[in-house]
């Protein structure tokens, strides 16, 4: 619990003190950031059951760094990614993990979906035995319960506080962070491991469904397939990955002399209530404005807007309309707009959390990483102050607004401020 001698203000402020991530183009924040600044994408072609060759963003983190071979045999990919990111975040935070009260640690992991990979694999497995269900694995249930990725983290790390996943489609990365923020504010935990993960490159169903929807990207060069805001964009590149943060009360972070990446100052989640898959720019606008209001900020105070930018023809237009409404270039001359999916595709439940990580170092280096793969800017996406092709050095970067939207009409917005006492 917060120390009574600490000021009430500090114990009510929630800060980010550690980052653990794996993305198709980086297995640590410094590596990921360097590749974003240098325009290095990483999307590959892979063979997908029943479909054939598809583009996918695949991670190559060291799975053996924190898990035994035996653990990996029963672990899900989402659980494994969650474990890698959580352990990396703890290390990065400098927290004395041995002496941490594990019953006061909470794990809040955003996921777009969970269980598709494992179920498809089991159906394939019994198809090799004439669909005899005696060959259906007893590992199926623990692998597919919705809390699996968060639960695997607690098993691996001996965490005894609450754990669950936050199912929020592609808004889940932000939603996981917001859940961690809530639980710290409520005093339910003293340390939150919060963010999002994706194992979606393992399920043919996700690819097939996007394909049937006319929303699966195709390009002769896989690294150019995810091209938000380009006139010729033709859909999503499905990716895996994860980003988990250590969140703490400012009072606790100060007491241990922690490095502070930034402070969560605003957030909002709302629902379109209009369509299962088509976005609604009006609700997105309301979501961003509500987050700004909670932060007590004006649109012109925002230095970087990370767009959700999935590279679907309709989705990008709707979002650009919303972002253009809230952040007109004329009244927001210092606001810059970028996205990360042009580098790594759509990391689903990890997307919001990973994209925030991609921009967080801007507080230190003053750089805005670009959006890439825009050869012909779509006039409907031609927002003023888009950073395209090359990074831009700014005099100062103090506030990042992170958008993440998902199916069934869920919108999330997170605002992070450079830490100032």
């Amino acid at each position: 619990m917060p120390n009574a001698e600490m000021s009430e203000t500090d114990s009510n402020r929630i800060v980010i003190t550690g980052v653990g991530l794996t993305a198709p183009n980086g297995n640590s924040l410094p590596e990921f950031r360097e590749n974003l600044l240098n325009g290095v994408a990483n999307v590959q072609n892979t063979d997908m059951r029943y479909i054939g060759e598809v583009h996918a963003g695949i991670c190559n983190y060291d799975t053996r760094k924190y898990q035994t071979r035996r653990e990996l045999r029963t672990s899900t990919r989402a659980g494994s990614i969650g474990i890698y990111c959580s352990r990396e975040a703890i290390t990065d935070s400098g927290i004395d993990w041995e002496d941490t009260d594990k019953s006061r640690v909470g794990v809040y992991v955003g996921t777009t979906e969970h269980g598709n990979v494992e179920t498809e694999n089991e159906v394939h497995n019994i198809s090799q035995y004439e669909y005899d269900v005696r060959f259906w694995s007893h590992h199926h249930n623990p692998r597919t319960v919705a809390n699996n990725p968060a639960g695997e983290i607690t098993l691996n790390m001996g965490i005894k506080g609450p754990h669950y996943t936050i199912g929020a489609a592609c808004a889940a990365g932000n939603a996981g962070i917001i859940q961690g923020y809530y639980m710290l504010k409520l005093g339910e935990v003293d340390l939150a491991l919060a963010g999002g993960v994706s194992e979606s490159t393992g399920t043919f169903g996700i690819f097939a469904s996007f394909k049937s929807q006319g929303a699966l990207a195709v390009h002769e060069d896989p690294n150019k397939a995810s091209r938000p805001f380009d006139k010729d964009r033709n859909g999503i590149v499905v990716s895996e990955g994860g980003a988990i943060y250590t969140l703490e009360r400012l009072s606790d972070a100060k007491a241990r002399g922690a490095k502070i990446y930034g402070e969560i100052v605003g957030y909002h989640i709302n629902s379109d209530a209009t369509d299962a898959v088509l976005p609604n720019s009006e609700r997105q606008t309301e979501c961003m404005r509500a987050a700004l209001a909670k932060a007590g900020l004006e649109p012109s105070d925002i230095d970087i807007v990370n767009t959700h930018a999935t590279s679907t023809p309709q989705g990008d237009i709707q979002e650009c309309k919303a972002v253009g409404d809230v952040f007109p270039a004329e009244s927001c001359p210092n606001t810059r707009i970028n996205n990360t999916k042009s580098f790594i595709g759509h990391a689903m439940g990890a997307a919001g959390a990973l994209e925030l990580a991609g921009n967080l170092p801007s507080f230190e280096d003053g750089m805005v990483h670009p959006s890439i793969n825009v050869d012909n800017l779509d006039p409907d996406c031609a927002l003023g102050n888009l950073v395209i092709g090359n990074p831009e050095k700014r005099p100062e970067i103090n506030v990042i607004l992170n958008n993440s939207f998902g199916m069934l009409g869920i919108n999330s917005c997170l605002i992070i401020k450079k830490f100032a006492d």
Partner: protein
Amino acid sequence: MTKEDIKKVVLDIIAEIAPDEDLSNVKPSIRLRDQLDLDSMDFLDIVMELRKKFGIEVPEDEYINLASLDSCADYLIPKFKSVQA
């Protein structure tokens, strides 16, 4: 298949299930759980692999016979004979 063959079969299955374990000194007469880090899910894996690899069924009330390598061999030898017949 001899008892020694069956012990090797079971040990090979355990090597797949628990790849981090050192199996070089497993004592046939001592309970596997007393020598190795195996849990209930691992024993279900042994049952599943016997089914997949050899078509052998081990009913739930007979799992106790899989306690040690010796008891596995005694219990499984007639089952291997009947599936090979």
